[in-house]
């Protein structure tokens, strides 16, 4: 079982002679959460870009990134099976709520409509299928963003300060929802945050950057 989960071995990222990440190693087991903490400008988002494969060419990356025993570095971003959630939720503004969910669903999925209807019911938004995402509340958007990502069946989940835009009451609920679902699906989770409460709620390992 040593192969399962998300493994980072001696990951180094530099740009223009400046070292952002200097030898980071970690092993996130399925269902576990690794919290990466640090003030802004310490390369947290850059680390996530290295894992999703969207690092800008100005950055140089060394080290190894493995997901369930598969080397991610030679793979194109769309083939890495790595999901990501941003703080702004970033629902596609030109698509309806159900079209947003359908975007990530594999084209060969059977009964796509039923799957999406079930997914909407699952996050208590059954009536919202045809709605303009701009009319949703912050909490509703966060739920759609999470469900959209999960429908793409990722094998790991990255969180980029995912709760910082939500108000306090909603934040606890969303943390609970994200971590529970990730655990149920057995997804290794890597979260970058500057909020200690996020790391506490996650309850896993914590790495400090910067």
């Amino acid at each position, binding site marked *: 079982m040593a192969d399962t989960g998300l493994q980072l071995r001696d990951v180094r990222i530099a740009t223009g002679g400046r070292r952002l990440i200097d030898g980071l190693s970690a092993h996130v087991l399925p269902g576990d959460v690794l919290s990466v903490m640090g003030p802004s400008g310490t390369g947290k988002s850059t680390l996530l870009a290295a894992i999703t494969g969207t690092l800008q060419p100005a950055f140089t990356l060394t080290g190894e990134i493995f997901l369930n025993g598969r080397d991610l570095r030679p793979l194109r971003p769309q083939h890495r099976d790595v999901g990501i959630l941003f703080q702004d939720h*970033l629902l596609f503004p030109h698509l309806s709520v159900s079209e947003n969910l359908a975007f990530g669903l594999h084209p060969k999925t059977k009964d796509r409509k039923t799957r999406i209807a079930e997914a909407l019911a699952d996050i208590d938004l059954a009536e919202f299928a045809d709605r*303009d995402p701009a009319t949703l509340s912050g909490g509703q958007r966060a739920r759609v963003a999470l469900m959209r990502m999960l429908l*793409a069946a990722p094998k790991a989940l990255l969180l980029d300060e995912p709760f910082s835009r939500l108000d306090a009451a909603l934040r606890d609920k969303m943390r609970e929802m994200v971590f529970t679902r990730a655990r149920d699906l057995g997804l290794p989770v890597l979260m970058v945050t500057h909020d200690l409460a996020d790391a506490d709620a996650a309850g896993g390992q914590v790495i400090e950057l910067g």
Partner: protein
Amino acid sequence: MPNNTPSKTGWGIVPLVTIALLLGPVTAGMIGTILPAFGGLRPGGGGGFSLQAWREVAATPGLGTSAWLSLKTGLISTFGAIFISLLLVAGWHGTRAFRAVEQALSPLLAVPHVTAALGLAFLMAPSGWLARLGSPWATGWQRPPDLLILQDPGGWSLIAGLIAKETPFLLLMMLAALPQARPAERLQVALAAGYGRVTGWIFAVFPNVYAQLRLPVYAVLAYGISNVDVALVLGPSTPSMLSVQILRWMSDPDLALRAPAAAAALLQLGLVIIGLALWRLAEAACGTIGRRLLWRGIRGANRRDDLARGIGLTLSIAAALAVIGGLVGHLLWSFAGRWRFPDALPESLRLRTWARHGQEIIDVSAGTLALAFAAALIALVLVIGCLEAEHRRGRVMGRGGLLVLYMPLILPQITFLPGLQILLLQTGASMGWLPVLIAHLVFVLPYVFLSLAGPYRAWDARYATLGAALNASPDRVLWQLRLPMLLGSVLTALAVGMAVSVGQFLPTLLASGGRLPTLTTEALAIASGGDRRAIGAWAAALTLAALMPFVIAVLLPRVTYRNRRGVLDG
């Protein structure tokens, strides 16, 4: 399967094709101009080095006046347009009056130079609207006075026309450059130090803005020195601007006159280079003077500030009214029945002019719009390809790329387009729509690029990351996320491209050998006839053809995304 490295997907080739399309015709045109100027490419064959063409140019009566006129017109009109837009932005940016003037001026950007010039001619002519409004109660004129207001030998009506047309352009370019200069914060600091609004803005904000404004200003200056279309309507005729003299030689049935035309075209290039050099000197001088004033602690507050703001607002409203008044005038004349001097309005409105010219106008409009759509669409595809290649490489185009883009806008049309025609003639290539399309592309491409690059680069790249995380290929992200979200900007860029193509005079005339009529070439041909009603109808159709794509670009996204607020707001 798409890959992420542009070289493997073919995206890397798009910038190269675009550069070739921009520089190819320019280079060919320069060769076609330089060779005949020194004895090459003679119509009857043969060649050999010769300075005969230059001797003919030198012997042309009034040549010195023509050259001086060109330089003077370009420098003064460019200074005037900057002066007005600077005073307006410095004195009023952030106020409600500013937004109103900005909204009045922005659509005028799309109005072709030719219609603006013809409109201004209608306003300022001795029998024009201004004279009518003031007569006879103020002037006492019962008949149009015998005054040479238009096409005055000093070129002042031409200068006024250029200022009215270029002020909106420089204003919008200034606004585009503004955010990076953090105008609000800096002005606050200047005001707190006791500076007047205008002086404070010029000292604290303008230097940064001007650094980004330089290339557009050079394009305006080069156009002012070398333009043909506005000069034909408003410029003096004996002697005329040098550019007009070159066109006369180029249009002469005597092919031997192509040689002096080519030599004069190089002289024209020299004038533009001199103009640019003088401008650079003036830039340096302004910097020095500005620093002196700064050290002296000049504040320009109170009365002086009020005066500067008043001048800025008045002149920019005058510029807007000049163009808008001209457009209304065209429309009115095209429907006018009897309209005697000094009546301010026609006695009746008739459809006679449209009945007489309508069919021809519709035919020519269809051809003009088809050509414009083809040029703008090709340009749009190439520009999206360039910007997408940039995105996938993760590297933004450098200064060299920007210079290539501005090359066709700064190098005078009248310098390299005659060469293109001479080459086409010499090689026996047909002069149909294909050379015209290619010539239009040279000028459409830069504007489409400048229009789309900002919004395209500003698109939040996290959507692309998210798309990839949802297993979408870069191509799917482009087609299903980026382009639909940028629909408004894409359509606006297409409209900009169409407006540029619709307004092209010289490329159409020279690359088609005068055999492809468009609204612009026809409007100018009819203008020389002096039939006000016909001019009005053709100019109105030309304006409509240039503006219609913008109306569609504004309305279509509103219909498509009527239930998608996030796209329209973002």
